[in-house]
């Protein structure tokens, strides 16, 4: 999933202060799972903003709405009936959601309420860790299911480097050395030979090095 964290309230307040009617839009997908911008967080942020403005003696109208998916024009269309009653939109979705709204409702200012962080997996309740960089050319099949692009601090393709120590990375003793994990995993699978094969320099064009990426599926297009 795409992970996100709420922005500091001071930044959000600065964005919306000039407006009286705010449409606060959450998303039912990734940001709900990582508890950053789902219906619950929308309610909490609306309440916090109301407290702030009431303290200033100002009442602002905050309309809460949580869409099924903010990165999908089909669901963003649902805001049509609300948009005229809002001076500005505050989105709690990832950057994709914010941009989908901005593209559809060009006449209204759209502000993000969260910082989009990374593509991650849930390690345990309340902890999310980066697991994928979306490099566009997946190596997991040859690295024992552990990604060196996302999990090695240097993105080494033939690791580990000299900074590994007792299975930990030199940048932080809490960060595991991806290449130690890869080696242990390959060994457990009896695939040590694969480790000895030198990987050539990776083509980072599919990773975004060739400009913004796009997927076109003609079989699905209408």
């Amino acid at each position: 999933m795409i992970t996100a964290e709420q922005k500091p309230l001071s930044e959000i307040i600065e964005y919306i202060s000039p407006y009286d009617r705010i449409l606060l839009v959450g998303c039912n997908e990734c940001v709900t799972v990582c508890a950053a911008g789902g219906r619950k967080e929308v309610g909490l942020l609306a309440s916090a903003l109301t407290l702030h403005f009431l303290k200033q003696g100002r009442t602002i109208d905050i309309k809460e709405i949580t869409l099924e998916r903010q990165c999908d024009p089909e669901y963003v269309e649902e805001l049509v009936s609300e948009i005229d009653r809002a001076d500005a939109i505050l989105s709690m979705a990832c950057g994709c959601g914010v941009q989908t709204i901005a593209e559809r409702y060009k006449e209204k200012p759209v502000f993000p309420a969260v910082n989009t962080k990374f593509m991650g997996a849930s390690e345990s309740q309340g902890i999310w860790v980066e697991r994928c960089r979306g490099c566009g050319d997946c190596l997991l099949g040859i690295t024992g299911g552990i990604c060196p692009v996302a999990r090695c601090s240097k993105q080494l393709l033939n690791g580990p480097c000299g900074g590994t120590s007792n299975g930990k990375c030199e940048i932080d003793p809490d960060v595991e050395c991806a290449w130690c994990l890869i080696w242990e995993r390959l060994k457990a699978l009896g695939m040590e030979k694969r480790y000895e094969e030198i990987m050539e320099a990776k083509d980072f064009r599919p990773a975004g090095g060739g400009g913004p990426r796009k997927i076109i599926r003609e079989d699905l297009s209408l």
Partner: protein
Amino acid sequence: MENFEPEIVAFCCHYCAYTAADMAGSKRISYPPNVKIIRVPCTGKVDAIHIMKALEKGADGVYVAGCLEGDCHFKNGNTRAGYRVEHVQKYLEELGWETERVAMMNMSAGMGEFFARTALEFTQKIKQLGPSPIKRINIDKSQKAVG
């Protein structure tokens, strides 16, 4: 502000604090009428939004009273409630509100006297802090209007 009587909302767990409040009553131990109790099946049911809404609707203080550490009827609802209270306190800090307006308390069903004492202490603390910032604004407005 001398006559200020705060409105306090207490989310009380059915298995401990609510029963403790009941026991305080049975023992004829009085506690401030400012404290309005909301019974919950477990403090784990209390979410940050409930505390925020109470403040938004004019409560001067809110506290969550759950079981003693390790004694939760549902394993760890009281610990979760503690985290949520901390979460709200962080929010309040960011908003420039006094974080003491929100608190977590732990007690057992037999601690009727403790319930009454903490209710009194919390009420006194809120009295010292004064009305919630929202009410303060309304008071200032009405005073200006009279003046």
